[in-house]
């Protein structure tokens, strides 16, 4: 009796631990804005490994699976420079503004992560 209760308890603990590891499903959105919007020398942007289409009027709203994505820009020599991490949550929108006059371009998050060493380079929705 006691053994089975213990097994049940362990199973419960395992289930909660697993649930904490499994990322929240669903889809959210990333809104990317560039300043200045009308710049002709817009750098090529990448969300993880996917190259983004040039932003129309300096803005785009992209649907994205919930999770963390890396926003990168192509810099001199074709190298990719990490601008910031973007945390996408289910049915929420994460907005990031990229200042493209700076070299390399810089992310400005509407809402930063509050914890972690990369907090000021992590935008969340």
């Amino acid at each position, binding site marked *: 009796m006691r053994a089975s209760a213990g097994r049940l308890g362990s199973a419960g603990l395992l289930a909660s631990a697993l649930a904490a590891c499994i990322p929240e499903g669903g889809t959210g959105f990333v809104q990317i804005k560039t300043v200045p919007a009308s710049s002709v020398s817009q750098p090529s942007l990448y969300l993880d490994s996917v190259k983004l289409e040039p932003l129309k009027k300096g803005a785009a*709203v992209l649907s994205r699976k919930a999770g963390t994505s890396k926003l990168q820009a192509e810099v001199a020599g074709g190298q990719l420079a990490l601008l910031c991490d973007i945390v996408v949550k289910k049915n929420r929108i994460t907005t990031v503004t990229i200042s493209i006059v700076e070299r390399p371009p810089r992310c400005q998050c509407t809402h930063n992560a509050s914890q972690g060493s990369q907090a000021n380079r992590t935008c969340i929705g």
Partner: protein
Amino acid sequence: MIGSLVSLSAVKRAAAVLAVVGAISSGSMWAEAGANADADAFVPVEEYARKVEEFTKNAPNLNKKIEDGTKVIDNLADVPKARSEIEQLRAVVADLLGRVSDNGELARLGAKALEHSRNKLKVLEQDTRFKPEERQFLADHWRELIRQTERAAEDLDRARLEFAELLRTLQTREDFIDELLQIRRAAEAIKVLRQLTSELRDASEKLKTLIGGIKPPGV
């Protein structure tokens, strides 16, 4: 009434399609390979028009859900319940936004339709097989289709911005309510809810007008 309007728009589009296809097929020196290329150029426009029409038919149902959710929130004094209602509204707005996002199917089809139509027009303008007036007739039709496709894409751009703004409003109000509940300020949270419902009503009216104004190309 709605059914008859829909079928009327479908008939108009079919007529426009027939006009262009008929005009193209009347070219006596049209080679078979050329005719296939014409048909291919029109397919993306038709596909885009169908998807735009599908969106404009479905969006009002979702907008109705926003209106209904707003009414429910307005009558609730239980903040946690209202908060859960906001969460459901976010799902509805996210559904709408997903349909018009820049990497969504509609945007992809719109870009494809425009690219094919512009290429087709370029080829036609340099085509010397037809009489000038025949070439002009065909080119005018393609120009009009391009204009209509661009206009539909611009309307969807505006809708995308509105949905994004609405989603942001919902999530920031929800976060603010959470913060207020953390410091046990339920009365202030109720005030935020009332303000939110007023914003939602305005947004819903704006969306109704915006979505009602979107016309698929070829209509």
